[in-house]
């Protein structure tokens, strides 16, 4: 058992490190041009926020429609902490995450007693409230004109080097989010969280503290969304309340649903795909929203469970399959049916 765990850790580290080196090199040598490098980085931020939404919506089964609001809290608090208090970037991003987590806790206490549609409506309302507050707190947030001059990840003047550094930071945080979410899901609280999604009454009668774990998952989700927001602030260098409107919250829901509610790898694939499709459809101007809608309807018709359902693509299993053919000791009970695609859990 212990040996297995060690093997898994090594495999995942090696995969994510080599993927990182590959992508960073490709950006550095210009094979992935600056534009695509930027997009990939933005995709990473979307993946972080989508993973956080998947935690509460996909794994805990509580539909939340206000994640752009959490992202806004993270973004503004990180930016203000960096600009006003001159705190270095990493602690500022984590502080932004923590502040967002506190917001999550405060909003969660009254709203998580609600179920289904009601929770969706209240979180939606929260997202809008945050946006309006950001518009009106002019002294702190710059109001509707926006907050300018958030220092970038690096300021070397070399576009390519900057792109690589930007990408590296975001990639690092994606890995951090992945480690947090996937370990959480496999842990004992993770089991409790999944059982709440499956059946609240049954979880209750099994002795699971349903309100506590709902809160736990919601706060954790807010924390990660806040981190995503903080990176977003540094990525763009400029914040405006319009960046965190209701449509953005919906976009994250779309990513989670497309990828499969309760699938980490699904969210990663959908997050990257979504970012790119959004760019490609820019030539259609506002009609892209129509195309998006149509695409969403057809996905729901033909793959009602999203790209991956609740399944995962496991790098560990693939590595075992192709490199250690004789090592078939992995019969772990939590194993999801392996799908034959050759993507990795460690993608950005």
């Amino acid at each position, binding site marked *: 058992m212990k040996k297995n765990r060690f093997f898994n850790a090594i495999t995942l580290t090696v995969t994510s490190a080599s993927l990182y080196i590959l992508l960073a090199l490709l950006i550095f040598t210009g094979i992935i041009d600056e534009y695509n490098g930027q997009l990939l980085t933005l995709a990473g931020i979307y993946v972080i926020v989508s993973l956080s939404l998947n935690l509460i919506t996909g794994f805990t089964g509580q539909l939340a429609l206000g994640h752009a609001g959490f992202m806004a809290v993270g973004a503004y608090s990180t930016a203000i902490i960096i600009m006003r208090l001159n705190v270095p970037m990493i602690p500022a991003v984590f502080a932004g995450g923590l502040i967002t987590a506190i917001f999550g806790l405060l909003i969660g206490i009254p709203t998580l007693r609600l179920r289904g549609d009601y929770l969706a409506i209240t979180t939606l309302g929260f997202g809008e409230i945050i946006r309006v507050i950001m518009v009106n707190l002019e002294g702190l947030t710059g109001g509707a004109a926006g907050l300018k001059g958030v220092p970038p990840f690096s300021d070397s003047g070399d576009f390519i080097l900057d792109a690589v550094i930007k990408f590296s930071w975001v990639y690092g945080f994606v890995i951090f989010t992945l480690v947090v979410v996937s370990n959480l899901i496999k842990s*004992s609280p993770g*089991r*409790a969280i*999944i*059982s709440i999604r*499956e*059946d609240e*009454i*049954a*979880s*209750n*009668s*099994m*002795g*699971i*503290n*349903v309100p506590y774990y709902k809160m736990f998952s919601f706060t954790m989700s807010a924390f990660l969304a806040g981190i995503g927001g903080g990176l977003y602030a540094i990525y763009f260098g400029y914040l405006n309340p319009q960046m965190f409107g209701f449509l953005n919250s919906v976009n994250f829901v779309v990513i989670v649903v497309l990828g499969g509610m309760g699938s980490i790898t699904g969210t990663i694939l959908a997050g990257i795909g979504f970012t790119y499709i959004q760019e490609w459809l820019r030539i259609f101007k506002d009609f892209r929203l129509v195309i998006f809608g149509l695409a969403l309807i057809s996905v729901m018709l033909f793959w009602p469970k999203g790209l991956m359902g*609740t399944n995962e693509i496991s790098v560990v299993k693939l590595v075992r399959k192709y490199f250690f053919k004789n090592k078939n000791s992995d019969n772990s*009970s*939590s194993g999801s049916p392996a799908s034959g695609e050759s993507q990795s859990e460690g993608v950005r």
Partner: protein
Amino acid sequence: MLKIEGLNVYYGTIHALHDISFEVNEGEIVTLIGANGAGKTTTLHTISGLIQPKSGSVSFMGKPVTGVPANKIVEMGLCQVPEGRRIFANLTVQENLEMGAYTRKDKANLKNDYEVVFTRFPRLKERIRQIAGTLSGGEQQMLAMGRALMSRPKLLLLDEPSMGLAPLFVKEIFSIIMDINRAGTTVLLVEQNANMALSIANRAYVLETGSIVLSGNAKELAASEDVRKAYLGG
């Protein structure tokens, strides 16, 4: 072991339980029977902490249960098998059983308990890796009971275990309930299938629109004219 006194429960303005009092002694099978809407499930939910009563008290092994959160009640040794089974449909049989043992602190003894559950329900062992939602209705009921047993309850609350099952399965489930009781678990059984419930219970209470109208020895109740007319089809 379980003592309920003067319980009044409201759903909004609807008075669902009127002054209900009864008790379950250690080692017994006690059944609550009654028609649809009599308040059987409400009573169970109040005992296991899912609903808070307006007045009255529930105590278990001398300790008050009213006001204690539902998850703590399970730790006290009182476990409910909810109506309609409510297994975790997307998890495997094994994962369902693991969830049953969620509150257990003595993880070392779990292996033994799996064996106990598997000898009682051999079918579950055959299907240990199967997704629980794909089990048949009877197997799901077995899983729900096995899951509850994993928490090592002293008192097992069963809510309509025969619901929606084929007659053959109903018989099997009831004989398993008797086995579980013989092995030392006290059982409070809520049933619409009054005939079956009275045949295995020691004592019975008859609920009608939120009040207890009759109580006594299960065999005597089964023979009584009133009960026969009202619940046993003549």
